[in-house]
């Protein structure tokens, strides 16, 4: 039974993570590199003079971008382990888990892990002003946890009271508020920051939908494999 969880998560996480990593390199990385020109002071916004919005950006960096690919695959394997653990529990309670229903799981995962924390702590472009990292990480985990519980209650709850609790859980971290910086010091133009957040969310949604689909598919496939072995 352990192998079914681990194998399904490895296949789903590595394949969705590889696609996520490539999408990030194509769509997010150029925006990040552009922002770093301001973070390093090479370009200066608000300096009086007009600045081209299309500077020369560094190209593909095998070491840096290779590491990014590896870490994206690892991160999505972590997500896959969490999602497949919950899929296993849901299947015991009568839910149907396959590639098609996995798409919904993927959307829910995106909401819990990207959209919910990012709703108040927007994806940060390099150089942006931010509060202490430990405080933000605590808030991040708390928000992901409450959003995850809320989505589970929305999906599997059967009464209005449960759904009301879920709505309260979804909103609570944002009403309480995330750790914020005391002063703004970000040197990056707002256009780049907005594009970065939009791209991070877009790539995240695409990657999570694929992850959910793959996780459902491999979970089903590994289960059929295990059944076939048990009956052989």
């Amino acid at each position, binding site marked *: *039974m*352990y192998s*079914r*969880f*681990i194998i399904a*998560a490895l296949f789903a996480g590595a394949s969705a993570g590889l696609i996520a*990593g490539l999408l*990030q390199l194509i769509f*997010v*990385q150029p925006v*990040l590199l552009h922002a770093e020109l301001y973070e390093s002071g090479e370009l200066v916004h608000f300096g009086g003079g007009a600045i081209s919005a299309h500077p020369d950006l560094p190209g593909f960096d095998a070491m*840096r*971008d290779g*590491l*990014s690919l590896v*870490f*994206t695959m*690892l*991160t999505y*394997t*972590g*997500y*896959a*382990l*969490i*999602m*497949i*653990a*919950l899929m*296993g*529990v849901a299947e*015991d309670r009568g839910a149907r888990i396959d590639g098609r229903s996995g798409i919904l799981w993927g959307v829910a995962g995106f909401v819990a892990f*990207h959209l919910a*924390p*990012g709703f108040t*702590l*927007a*994806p*940060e*472009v*390099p150089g942006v002003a*931010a509060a202490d*990292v430990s405080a*933000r*990480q605590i808030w*991040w985990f708390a928000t992901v946890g409450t959003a995850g519980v809320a989505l589970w209650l929305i999906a599997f709850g059967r009464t209005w009271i449960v759904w009301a609790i879920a709505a309260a859980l979804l909103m609570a971290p944002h009403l309480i508020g995330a750790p914020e910086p005391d002063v703004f010091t970000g040197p990056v133009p707002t256009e780049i920051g907005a594009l*970065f957040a939009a791209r*991070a*969310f877009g*790539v*995240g949604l695409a990657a999570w939908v694929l992850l959910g689909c793959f996780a459902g598919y491999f979970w089903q496939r590994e289960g059929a494999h295990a059944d076939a072995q048990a009956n052989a």
Partner: protein
Amino acid sequence: MTTQTMTRSNLRMMPALFALALGFAVISLTGHVQAAALHDAAHDVRHATGFPCH
């Protein structure tokens, strides 16, 4: 049938908890641990994935 389902369900709980814990350990490592080497290697991913970074 009920007994069999119960047994199977109990059998599945431990691996599920194990996978859950392992998953959170992995994303803590790739997304949150502030050790310099890890931070530098995962820097771009942390930003692109919306993790709080430095």
